[in-house]
């Protein structure tokens, strides 16, 4: 079953894992931190190269264990970009001890886990890959700082994470019981047949429990409570890791599972998947309005972004036709990519910053940063504006895709007013939330540029994190100017991997699927005129 081709597809992950092991092994032998750091960068680079190389040739093959379709490729790309930013952007002076190798290695494990989740086609691999993301994270959180807050955040995250993963596993157990298989591909068609035969008593429980596990990673309501507390105690880079890696995992898991289980056109399910994002983003945004602690503020903001991401998932669930599935999946991916860059950039910038020798904790400490560190302030402003969704920046396209996706589904589902209303409600609440969110993002920008410093200490930023942050900002600007490449890439991924999965799960005849794919990749007149 596990043949050479499967191994070949996993080369990037294998490189990450082996590289991480090597780094960890080398670290006790007094290898200097800078060498280890360079090794980490080299490992990520190698993974990227091998992802480009043999990986792209494998399209839409799935054996029992792995997907090697464009969706998993897209998610692995997002993961590796995040990993590259993370490995490059970490501040050199953040910690000074002999555990640098362990940190780098464990971080690489986390990202390898993310990539495996993206590729997992079997419940067992999904579960262990998810744990490969969680378990090193517990350690990293503890290794962040030596104060009470850091320890507290690690134990909080640890306990709640294993608690939620118990729910996740229980949900998987029910899925297995109901479908009789651990393979995602066949469990999808089985689930659909089961629903048709009316054995649905436990099915919502199973889905809900699985959602418990993945929603915890995403920090979605009602599993978001840990986020502000844990971010507050973590170091900026750890908070950045928490804000990005679990989000990738959650989105990957949700998209994959829901696509394979075949989004059922069931108003009750749609209602659940619409209510959760509505509450999540509202909670995140209104919670952030009050915050003065930087990382708490960003934690609430990450909760809000989880809500936005779930809009796309809701669109996928509600989408009656291929357009809806593709819109939902591709807009979620787009939002995820943009969010990952903006969020990691923000945390890099904060990690590299020292005000009076300390990492800034409070928003007030950033007052008037623009005078001393104009580039850093510029980058931070770009991140904030992007997360707020101000037009020409990348975040705008992410939000726009989600909202138009919801509206398009509402348009297409005219047969079921209930579902259409939920989708419209998602769009309206999303827009309203974007308006609310502007308030606190703008507060950060205003603090950077328009306030007089309260502390006399000269802020100083490390050159490398600063450069990475500015690079991220430029990346966001570039995506803002030319989003088409990213969006059509993600759409292509969704068309070629979500549509067949859903069609299989819902028993669409292959001819209909082909038709759908063709109609979705048809180029538009406006586009072809310029080509």
């Amino acid at each position: 079953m596990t043949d050479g081709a499967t191994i070949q597809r996993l080369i990037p992950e294998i490189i990450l894992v082996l590289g991480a092991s090597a780094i960890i092994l080398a670290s006790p032998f007094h290898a200097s931190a800078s060498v280890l750091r360079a090794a980490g960068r080299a490992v990520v680079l190698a993974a990227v190269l091998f992802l480009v190389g043999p990986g792209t040739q494998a399209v839409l093959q799935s054996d029992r264990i792995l997907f090697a379709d464009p969706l998993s490729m897209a998610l692995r790309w997002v993961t590796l970009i995040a990993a590259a930013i993370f490995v490059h952007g970490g501040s050199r002076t953040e910690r000074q001890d002999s555990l640098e190798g362990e940190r780098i290695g464990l971080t690489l494990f986390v990202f390898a886990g993310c990539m495996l989740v993206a590729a997992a086609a079997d419940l067992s691999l999904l579960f262990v890959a998810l744990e490969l993301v969680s378990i090193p994270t517990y350690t990293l959180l503890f290794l962040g700082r030596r104060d009470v807050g850091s320890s507290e955040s690690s134990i909080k995250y640890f306990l709640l994470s294993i608690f939620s993963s118990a729910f996740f596993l229980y949900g998987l157990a029910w899925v297995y019981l109901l479908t009789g298989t651990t393979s995602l591909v066949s469990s999808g068609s089985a689930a659909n047949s089961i629903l048709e035969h009316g054995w649905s008593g436990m099915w919502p429980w199973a889905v809900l429990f699985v959602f418990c596990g993945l929603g915890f990673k995403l920090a979605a309501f009602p599993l978001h409570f840990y986020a502000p507390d844990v971010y507050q105690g973590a170091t900026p880079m750890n908070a950045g890791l928490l804000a990005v890696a679990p989000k990738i995992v959650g989105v990957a898991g949700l998209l994959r599972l829901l696509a394979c289980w075949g989004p059922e056109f069931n108003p009750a399910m749609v209602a659940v998947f619409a209510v959760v994002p509505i509450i999540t983003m509202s909670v995140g945004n209104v919670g952030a309005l009050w915050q003065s602690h930087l990382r708490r503020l960003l934690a609430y903001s990450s909760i809000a972004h989880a809500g936005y991401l779930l809009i796309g998932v809701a669109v996928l669930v509600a989408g009656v036709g291929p357009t809806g599935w593709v819109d939902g999946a591709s807009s979620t991916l787009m939002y995820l990519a943009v969010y990952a860059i903006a969020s990691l950039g923000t945390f890099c910038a904060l990690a590299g910053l020292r005000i009076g020798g300390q990492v800034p904790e409070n928003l007030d400490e950033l007052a008037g940063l623009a005078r001393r560190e104009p580039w850093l302030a510029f980058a931070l402003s770009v991140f904030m504006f992007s997360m707020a969704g101000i037009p020409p920046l990348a975040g705008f396209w992410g939000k726009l895709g989600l909202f138009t996706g919801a509206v398009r589904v509402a348009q297409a589902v005219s047969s079921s007013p209930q579902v259409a209303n939920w989708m419209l409600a998602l769009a309206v609440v999303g827009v309203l939330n974007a308006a609310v969110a502007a308030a606190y993002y703008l507060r950060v920008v205003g603090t950077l540029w328009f306030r007089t410093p309260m502390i006399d200490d000269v802020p100083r930023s490390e050159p490398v994190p600063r450069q990475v942050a500015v690079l991220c900002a430029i990346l966001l600007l570039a995506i803002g100017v030319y989003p088409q490449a990213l969006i059509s890439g993600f759409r292509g991924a969704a068309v070629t991997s979500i549509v067949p999965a859903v069609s299989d799960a819902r028993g669409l005849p292959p001819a209909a699927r082909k038709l759908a794919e063709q109609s979705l990749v048809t180029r538009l007149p406006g586009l072809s005129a310029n080509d």
Partner: protein
Amino acid sequence: MSEFSTFAVTSLLAATDFFANGWASLLAWKDQPAMWAVLGTMFLISGLWALQPGARGGWRVLGVLACLAGLGFCVRLLPELSGTIPVVVTFRLMASLALVSGLATVTAKNPVYSAMWFAVTLMGTAMMMLLLGGQFVAVATVAVYAGAIVVTFLFVLMLAQSSGRDPCDRLTWGKVPAWWAAPAAALLFVMICAGLHQESFPNRQEGAEVVSSGLIESGADHVQSAAASLPVANSVAQRFPESHVAQLGGQLFSRYLIPVQVVATLLLAALVGAVAIASYGTASGIEEQLS
């Protein structure tokens, strides 16, 4: 779905009737599974409520009795356990052993006792796994869980010198858990039991058929049909022939090779993490905190 929601609504109605008209009214619901569900929920809630830490000591016995009664009602939601007498008796014995010792794990004031009781629970579950044909898994549970993990727990507990005198072992946190945790746990349990209820439980034979039909329909030929590896039979021995542990090994190292490798990585990560935490947390960390 609709059947299940009917069940939920019936339960609600029965509960309302009970609260409005008292015990006598439940007679009217006697033949409905919903009544067992309602009774089970209420007994479990009151039992757990009485057993929570910080509740008065005298209630403990009553609490255990109430929980058992609730469990009894819930069992009635399922089809009756049938089979040869030794199997049935062993199963009932082990099930009650596991559940009662689980209850004791949760409620014991002394954490050391909790860990001990948990070991007993593990014995019960291992025995049930054996009954279902999971010889290797049963042994692994005993060896890894009871043998390693629980002992480690005990070790840490001893090191941490906690023997039930700490207020945190005798109390729960305020009034919230008393009013919310017990109902939540009871409701969750009863709802799952209702999901296991005869009518809504998937019939395997039909299920297998549907699964394979679904696979063929979708054209996923390369995916092996799921229900092919073992013969269908009525008893444990027939179902799991002696060679099945070998089959298990084969599965682990063929189909599940990648998850097993990932678990190996995971063990490495946990090992490194535990060492790093230990070395990071001890000497320098405490110094810093003291300074």
